[in-house]
């Protein structure tokens, strides 16, 4: 197969295992490209991409922008803070205005779940979801799986635990879909209050004891506690959270095997993981960031190849 089954990347639940394989195979080529003396290819020189960020982002926006520029696409950036959204414009109006300036593809982050799906039904452009509320963040899940594949050879059969704020995390949901799709075993670990109800129905197990989860896993994906999405208190104090769910070097060294530590960023050092873990050989956090550019290049390239002339 050499073509994606979808015209948009709205979430992992809409794509197939073959799509994931094709994205990874293409990302391998782009990883080689971004390690050349000149890191740019001219493939998308006639494509214009709008990055619409209705929510804050540093890493994802930079990563997308770099990926787009290394494919030679024209890029326009938009952030909600400085736009007419503040003046009451609707999402469809905003996007249609941008599209009438002949934009072919939209990368969008939005605080509302389903914003990407909604947009794909109403505007004529290829949409990439760069995070929609607490719903999905498909490119992050793909780069996480790509990094596991790079480190451990394959994703299938590996034990992966996602630790932390599962309730508010789009990274967790997309990762669960992506890992299950590729045949990995997935557990989620965190305080009961930060576990969504019926999470087991996605085929994952819940573990509330961090040590047990770490003893079981090959890979631990440590998530940030998303204080900005919390209107009420979900645990008594940060100190207590750190004691129960913070990963430090002592726990890591006491395990019976070596595990790989991941983090989607931004890290709250000293909360979900300590600095000595984040900077250790176990962590592949910076590899994830590098792979993020290659994987996003692959996704943009493959979606752009489906845009009709």
């Amino acid at each position, binding site marked *: 197969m*050499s073509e994606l089954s979808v015209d948009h990347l709205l979430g992992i639940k809409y794509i197939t295992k073959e799509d994931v394989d094709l994205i990874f195979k293409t990302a391998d*080529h782009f990883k*080689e490209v971004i390690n050349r003396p000149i890191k740019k290819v001219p493939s998308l020189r006639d494509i214009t991409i709008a990055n619409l960020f209705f929510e804050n982002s540093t890493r994802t926006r930079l990563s997308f922008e770099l990926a787009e520029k290394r494919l030679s696409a024209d890029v326009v950036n938009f952030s909600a803070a400085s736009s007419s959204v503040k003046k009451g414009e609707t999402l469809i109006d905003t996007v249609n205005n941008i599209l009438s300036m002949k934009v072919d593809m939209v990368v969008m982050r939005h605080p509302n779940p389903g914003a990407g799906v909604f947009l794909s039904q109403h505007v004529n452009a290829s949409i990439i979801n760069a995070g929609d509320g607490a719903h999905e963040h498909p490119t992050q899940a793909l780069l996480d799986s790509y990094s596991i594949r790079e480190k451990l050879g394959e994703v299938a059969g590996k034990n992966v635990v996602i630790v932390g704020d599962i309730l508010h995390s789009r990274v967790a949901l997309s990762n669960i879909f992506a890992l299950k799709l590729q045949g990995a075993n997935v557990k989620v670990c965190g305080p009961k209050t930060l576990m969504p109800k019926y999470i087991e129905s996605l085929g994952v197990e819940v573990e509330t004891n961090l040590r047990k989860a770490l003893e079981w896993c090959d890979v631990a994906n440590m998530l940030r506690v998303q204080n900005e999405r919390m209107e009420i208190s979900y645990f008594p104090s940060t100190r207590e959270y750190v004691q129960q769910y913070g990963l430090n070097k002592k726990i890591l060294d006491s395990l019976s095997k070596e595990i790989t530590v991941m983090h989607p960023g931004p890290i709250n050092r000293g909360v979900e993981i300590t600095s000595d873990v984040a900077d250790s050989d176990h962590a592949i956090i910076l590899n994830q960031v590098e792979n993020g550019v290659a994987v996003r290049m692959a996704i943009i390239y493959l979606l*752009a*190849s489906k845009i*009709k002339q």
Partner: protein
Amino acid sequence: MSQKILLNETEIEIILHRLACQLIEKHNDFSESVFIGIQPRGTFLAERLQQKLERDYQITEVKTGKLDITFYRDDFRRSKKPLEANKTRIDFLVEDKRVIFIDDVLYTGRSIRSALTAIQSFGRPKEIELLTLIDRRFSRHLPIQPDYNGRQVDAINEERVKVNWKENEGEDCVYLVNN
């Protein structure tokens, strides 16, 4: 579909020998020369020529790389079939080197045009030459001609030249295929 043999194993061997001699005549010292096989099928020819220089003429200093041109092609979003990439492997700098592009068939010249752009990502070569096993003359879309040429072929557009290599198809043979 019908096909006829353009070159058999013996003829290919004679041509490879001649091409190797022409390269030696032109380059003499290969310390600054590099072979770049154009993916997917030029790489076999590049490796064959490198082996020939090594075995028959004890020239061992030629470096060989593989260049994939997929992301540099001018038919992205235009071709009916999606483009599929291959591996690029160039473990050396081409800066100031004498680069020899090696491909099995020269047809429209568009692949070589893409390769000329692609190679710039690895430095600024001193010069670039082109070696092809089969030159489908009169089919060119661009002003590109080979410097070393195995055999010129006059084929019409519906016909396809297919080069088989032992490494891939189990035989050395060049066919003219009529679809």
